[in-house]
């Protein structure tokens, strides 16, 4: 099934077409999947009046590249309502990240803060392809995922502000956010990958037909334990959708400077791979839907690569300009932005009028502002031993006491 010959016939035409269309694309052979966020097409006459009636979108044939795998269907069924929801979700995530950026610069957020501005299509596209009963685990760049998994903006911002009503009660911070079906928010680069394989293992063990979305960056993809997880996932046919969010840079080290093979979707070797235009929320949705079906049919794992781009630095302390040019950032922002791309589609296809989108933008902005205000109004955790020492162990199973800085500060659970 996965013979080399078959693969070549499948992938070749795309490359040839790309090369023919533009010699520039050919010279950038490492990223042959387009990052055009508005490359899908629709027969405008097929767009229904009704908000809930499905119609078909045809994705660009440069949306995917595959490794030992048939590509997903290029036809994606969507409704007007879904498209608008995806748009709204991406706008909210971006507004939320921009709010975090502002709060950080106002020195209200402590420590590390990694923003996903520019990468919104990945978190949003994935959530629109899976169910709440599916599992997601990701790295420290987790705010968008936490929101899409059901965390509220106020709880996420509240967490960044170290508030008691934050999503992790002020105990986790920027990198550690959890929700139902969302397993963090993990701060050790690459360590979440075998943990994610374990989530998939548990699904298989309990017989639940779910998908596990496991995300890591192009930087993490060189960690040994990523390959350990691949091995076990393939060996035991786990329903794991590994996904490398390739934003081109692991901190300040470009993919080409860190990875002997930058085709991250091929790095599963014996696991079929799928490279996806991660700037196009529709391509992400199509790919993950396909992946979910793949794992549900007990075909084992897949390695996806979401080709994306982060506009900001690695973290708030990184201006993000020493290892890449301002022109590169500007080019991605102005020509490949996931939000602008979907907006263009929505307008072109007559899904909504400009006014309606402007309204969504406005509402999202004021919604995020209100949520931020609510978060800022939240109380910080009381600096008491009770709160400091709670949840180190499951309640009721704690040791008699926890040691403080000095003996007088020892905290006894039974007062």
């Amino acid at each position, binding site marked *: 099934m996965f013979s080399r010959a078959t693969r070549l016939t499948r992938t070749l035409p795309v490359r040839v077409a790309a090369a023919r269309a533009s010699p520039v694309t050919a010279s950038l052979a490492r990223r042959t999947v387009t990052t055009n966020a508005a490359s899908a097409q629709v027969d405008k006459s097929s767009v229904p009046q009704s908000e809930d009636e499905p119609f078909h979108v045809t994705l660009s044939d440069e949306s995917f590249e595959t490794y030992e795998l048939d590509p997903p269907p290029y036809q994606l069924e969507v409704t007007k309502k879904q498209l608008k929801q995806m748009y709204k979700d991406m706008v909210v995530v971006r507004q939320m990240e921009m709010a975090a950026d502002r709060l950080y610069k106002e020195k209200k957020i402590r420590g590390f803060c990694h923003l996903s501005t520019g990468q919104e299509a990945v978190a949003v596209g994935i959530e629109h392809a899976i169910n709440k009963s599916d599992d997601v685990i990701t790295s420290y760049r987790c705010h968008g995922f936490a929101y899409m998994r059901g965390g509220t903006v106020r709880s996420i911002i509240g967490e960044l502000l170290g508030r008691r009503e934050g999503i992790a009660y002020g*105990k986790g911070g920027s990198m550690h956010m959890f929700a139902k079906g969302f397993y963090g928010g993990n701060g050790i680069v690459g360590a979440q990958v*075998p943990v994610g394989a374990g989530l998939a293992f548990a699904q298989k063990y309990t017989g639940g037909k779910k998908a596990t979305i496991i995300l890591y960056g192009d930087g993490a993809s060189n960690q040994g334990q990523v390959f*350990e997880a691949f091995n*076990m996932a393939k060996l035991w046919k786990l329903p794991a959708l590994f996904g490398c969010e390739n934003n081109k840079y692991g901190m300040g080290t470009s993919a080409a400077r860190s990875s002997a093979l930058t085709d991250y979707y091929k790095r599963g070797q014996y696991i079929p791979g799928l490279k996806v235009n991660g700037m196009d929320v529709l391509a992400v949705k199509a790919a993950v839907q396909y992946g979910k079906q793949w794992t549900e049919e007990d075909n084992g794992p897949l390695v996806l690569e979401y080709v994306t781009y982060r506009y900001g630095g690695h973290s708030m302390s990184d201006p993000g300009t020493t290892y890449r040019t301002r022109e590169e950032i500007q080019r991605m922002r102005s020509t490949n932005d996931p939000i602008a791309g979907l907006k263009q589609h929505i307008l072109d296809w007559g899904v909504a009028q400009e006014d309606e989108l402007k309204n969504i933008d406005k509402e999202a902005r004021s919604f995020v502002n209100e949520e931020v205000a609510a978060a800022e109004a939240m109380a910080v955790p009381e600096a008491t031993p009770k709160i400091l020492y709670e949840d180190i*162990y*499951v309640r009721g199973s704690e040791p008699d006491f926890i040691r403080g800085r000095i003996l007088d500060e020892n905290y006894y659970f039974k007062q």
Partner: protein
Amino acid sequence: MSRYLRPAARLAATARTSALRPATASPFLSRAAVIPGVQRRTYADASGVKEYTVRDALNEALAEELEQNDKVFILGEEVAQYNGAYKVTKNLLDRFGEKRVIDTPITESGFAGLAIGAALSGLHPVCEFMTWNFAMQAIDQIVNSAAKTLYMSGGIQPCNITFRGPNGFAAGVGAQHSQDFSAWYGSIPGLKVVSPWSAEDAKGLLKAAIRDPNPVVVLENELMYGQSFPMSAEAQKDDFVIPFGKAKIERSGKDLTLVTLSRCVGQSLVAAENLKKKYGVDVEVINLRSIKPLDIETIIKSLKKTHRLMAVESGFPAFGVSAEILALTMEYGFDYLDAPAARVTGADVPTPYAQGLEEMSFPTEGTIEQQAVKLLRL
């Protein structure tokens, strides 16, 4: 002579006779037959005590927990078809099938992470490391992914997992296979850490670990796997658990408190008997059982009686379990000490291969005795 020091042959004979006793004998009646002061052997016979190796006790604990809860499964290198590198998981594959007894590739960081993921998802994995030396490849997962997640999530994401395997030095296996990790894991908030010595310890602590909703590290000892101990009728039951954070006084005495754990408990008991014989002193031996939480109360209570304390362990000396015990003793019991507390530990040296050198690297009964003599100024 303490019941723990009887030669194995005599114990085996005891076990055989007890096994021949009619199964219908009421445990209530047997208990009623116990008369204080009567030789322990009689007590053992009458109450259905059987001889167990530590290996068998661990095996029974695993089998019982696998039997009682579908969420429990065991994974690790060679745990299934090979029957366990040290045969602790013997016959479990036959009994519970390959869904629940899983051979992993040699990929510690990977399978520890995978087991943690399964635990986060609600299962109760038992993750076996062939030895704890190899778990250093996975220590990030144990510390960062297992121990800290509950706290980092604000209490919403528990991780019910048991990590287990042989810890400490074995015989002639060289430096990379001869390390004691008690202090390493004992220093991590969010973990519970236990270290059994006897068969009862092994069974009760492992079962408690599997049932505990937190990540628990069970540090067994390869040199103890084949050792036999009497196992009480109570401990043979499938609901027997030993609570964490409670030390056991294995031998009571009034002149010196020996605080020890794992294999050193047995050595300390021998040393205590020798000290009694040679000098007539009564040494109290405390088997910690649990490293985190640590039962400081029992230690200080004993110190109040003996006024002298010595810690015995086989880990490296610096920043170790003994260092912690001595520090706690000073903090909680300084006024009760009649002499500076002392410690006997492994030497600060990568474990050598040659037998004579290896023997110099870890506490022996002689070292313990010698240090006690010095402390007691005998």
